C-alpha cells in the first residue's frame, strides 16, 4: 500500500510539469517576432488572404482561447506544419528522432562500459594515483565543449589518420538502400541483412558516439565513485572482510550490488543530458537527428518545428526523470 502511495506521489507531479512545459512552448511561440501567418503565405500576400489564414489558425482569438486550441491540437498529436519541409512536424520528428536515440544509446553504452569500472576502481583506491587520474579525466569530460572535441576528432581520425569515415550517418553508396523500419540506421541494416551497410553505419556512428560518451563519462564516473565510497563504509563490508571474502568479490558483489539502484537514477539522468549534447554533436557530424532538425529549423525561423522538437525533447526528459525517480522509490529498500 505504501508502495502505491509513493508511486502516486511521483506520478502526481507529472501532469503539472507537462502543463508547464506546454505553457512555456506556447508562450515562446507567441512572443516570436516572426508573424506565423506571413511565414506561411509570404510577404506579398493580399491582406484578405492574411486575414483569412489568421482566422483559420485561430490567431485572431484571445490568448487563452489560442492556448486551449494549442492544447487541443497537441492532444490530437498535431504540432502543426513545418514551413521548411512542408511536412507535418510530427512526421518530421518521427523521421529524425530515431537517429538521435541511436546516437545517444551508443554513447551511453560506451560511457557506462568505461565510467562504471573507472568509478569503482577509483573508489576502491581512494587517494591513489589512479583515483587522481580518474578525477582529472572526469572533470575534463565535463569541461570540454562537445563541438570542439567533435571537430578535433574529425580532424585527427578522418583527415589525418584516415581511419574513420567522415560526417553523416552512412556512405552515399548506401543512400536509400536501407529501409526506415525502426529509423535507427544500424539496426535497420542488420534487420534487413545488409551487412555492408551495417558495418558502414557502425563506422559512421563511432566518432560522434565517442564524443558524446566522453561528455557523460565524467558524470557517470564521478557518481559511481561517490556511491561506492559511501557503500564501502558500510558495516556489511567489514563483515564480508572478516569472513575472508576476496577483495574483488566484496567490491563487485557486496558494494556494487548495493549501489546499482542509485546508478539507475544516474544513468537515466545522464541519458537525458545527452539530448543536449546531441544537438551540438549532430551539427558537427551532420548526423540527421532531432538536434540537427532543431538547429536547421532555428536558422530558418521555422517556429512550429522548433517548438515541436523542444516539446518532444522535454517529454523525453520528463519521462527519463520520472524513470529515475520511480526506480529509486521502487527498488531502494531504504526509501520503500
Amino acid at each position, binding site marked *: 500500500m505504501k508502495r502505491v502511495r509513493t508511486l502516486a506521489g511521483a506520478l502526481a*507531479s507529472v501532469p*503539472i*510539469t507537462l502543463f*508547464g*512545459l506546454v*505553457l*512555456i*512552448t506556447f508562450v*515562446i*511561440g507567441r*512572443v*516570436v*517576432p516572426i508573424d506565423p501567418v506571413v511565414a506561411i503565405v509570404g510577404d506579398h500576400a493580399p491582406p484578405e488572404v492574411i486575414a483569412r489564414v489568421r482566422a483559420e489558425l485561430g490567431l485572431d482569438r484571445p490568448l487563452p482561447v489560442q492556448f486551449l486550441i494549442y492544447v487541443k491540437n497537441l492532444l490530437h498529436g498535431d504540432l502543426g506544419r513545418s514551413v521548411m519541409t512542408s511536412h507535418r512536424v510530427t512526421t518530421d520528428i518521427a523521421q529524425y528522432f530515431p537517429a538521435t536515440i541511436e546516437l545517444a544509446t551508443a554513447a551511453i553504452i560506451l560511457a557506462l562500459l568505461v565510467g562504471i569500472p573507472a568509478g569503482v576502481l577509483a573508489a576502491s583506491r581512494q587517494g591513489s594515483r589512479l583515483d587522481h587520474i580518474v*578525477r*582529472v579525466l572526469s*572533470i*575534463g569530460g*565535463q*569541461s*570540454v*565543449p*562537445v*563541438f*570542439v572535441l567533435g*571537430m*578535433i576528432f*574529425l*580532424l585527427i581520425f578522418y*583527415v589525418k589518420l584516415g581511419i574513420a569515415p567522415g560526417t553523416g550517418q552512412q556512405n552515399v553508396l548506401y543512400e536509400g538502400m536501407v529501409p526506415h523500419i525502426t529509423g535507427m540506421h544500424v539496426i535497420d541494416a542488420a534487420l534487413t541483412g545488409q551487412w555492408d551497410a551495417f558495418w558502414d553505419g557502425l563506422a559512421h556512428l563511432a566518432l560522434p558516439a565517442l564524443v558524446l560518451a566522453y561528455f557523460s563519462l565524467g558524470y557517470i564516473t564521478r557518481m559511481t565513485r*561517490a556511491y561506492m565510497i559511501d557503500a564501502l563504509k558500510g558495516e556489511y563490508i567489514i563483515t564480508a572482510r572478516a569472513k575472508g571474502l576476496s577483495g574483488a568479490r566484496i567490491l563487485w558483489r557486496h558494494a556494487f550490488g548495493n549501489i546499482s539502484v542509485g546508478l539507475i537514477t544516474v544513468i537515466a539522468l545522464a541519458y*537525458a*543530458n545527452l*539530448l*543536449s549534447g546531441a*544537438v*551540438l554533436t549532430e*551539427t558537427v557530424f551532420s548526423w540527421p537527428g532531432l538536434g540537427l532538425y*532543431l*538547429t536547421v529549423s*532555428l*536558422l530558418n*525561423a521555422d*517556429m512550429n518545428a*522548433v*517548438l515541436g*522538437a*523542444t516539446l518532444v*525533447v*522535454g517529454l523525453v*526528459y*520528463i519521462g527519463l*526523470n520520472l524513470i529515475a525517480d520511480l526506480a529509486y522509490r521502487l527498488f531502494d529498500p531504504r526509501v520503500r
Partner: protein
Amino acid sequence: MSDLSTPLSGNAAGLRAWLLSETPDSRRQAAWGRSYRGWLNFRRNPLGMAGLIIVLALLVLSLAAPLLTWQSPDVQHLAQRLAPPSAAHWLGTDELGRDLYTRLLFGGRITLGMVVAVVVLVAPLGLVVGAVSGYLGGMTDRIMMRVTDIFLSIPQLILALAFVAALKPGISSAVIAIALTSWPPIARLARADALTVRANDYIAAVKLAGASPARIIFRHILPLCLPSVIVRITLDMSGIILTAAGLGFLGMGAQPPMPEWGTMIASTRGYILEQWWVPTIPGLAILIASLAFNLLGDGLRDVLDPKQS
C-alpha cells in the same frame, strides 16, 4: 598571500596567530579565522589552486586586453588572411585577416562578461526563492518547487535555443535564456539547506525573540545556504561558458563580427582541414576557461561543502 603562512616578520606571524586563535575575542576574528583556515585547506589542493590561478589569469587577461595587444580585434587585413602564427600575429590570423590573439583576448571579455551577467541575475534569485521556499514550507514551497520542476523539464541548451529563437539571436538574449534555465537548480539546493537549517534550535530562539520571517530568512537562513550555493555556482560557471559557446557556435548567441569564442569557431570551422589552428585555438580557450571553473569549484567543494564531495 603566501607570506601569511610563513612567519617571516613578526607582523605576519602575529596576524597568523590572530587568525588561527582557538579563542577568538570577537565575531570578526572568528569569521576571518574561519576563512583563513578554509584558505589553508584549499591551498593544499593542487587542482583547485590551478583552477583559481587560471581563473584569475583569465580575468586579468580580459580586463587588460587593450594593454596586451597593439591591434584591434575588428581590423581586417585581407591580404594576410589565415596566416600561421608568427612574430606579427602570435596565434596567426583568421579568415578575414584579423589577429587571432587579439580576438581571443577580447573574446574573453565577452565570455566572462556573460558568465558574470548570468551569475548576477541567477544567484540572488535562486538563493531567495530557495530560502523562502524552504523556510516557509507548505503551499508556497509546493508552488515554487513545481515552477522549478517545469524549468528543469527541458535540457538547458534546448530551452535556451527556443528562448533565443523567440527573442532575437544576440548576447543579451543568450544571457537571459541561460539565466532563465540556471536558477532552478540553485533554488533547489538553497531550499534543501534551508530545510535543514530551519529545524535548528537557534532559529526557534530568534523566532521567540520576535524576529520577523524576513529577518530570519535573510539574516539567519540565507548565510547558511551560501557555501553550497557558491560551490554550485562555480561549477555552473563552466556550464554557462559551454552553453554560451554552444549558442554562439549554432549562430544563436553572440553574432559576428563579435570575437566570441563559439562564434569564432562557427565562422572558421570550414578551414579546419587546411588551417586547423584557426578554429582550434578558440576551442582550446573555451576548454581552458570551463576546465578552470570546474577545478576551482571542485576544490571549493572540498573546503566549503565537504559532505558533497
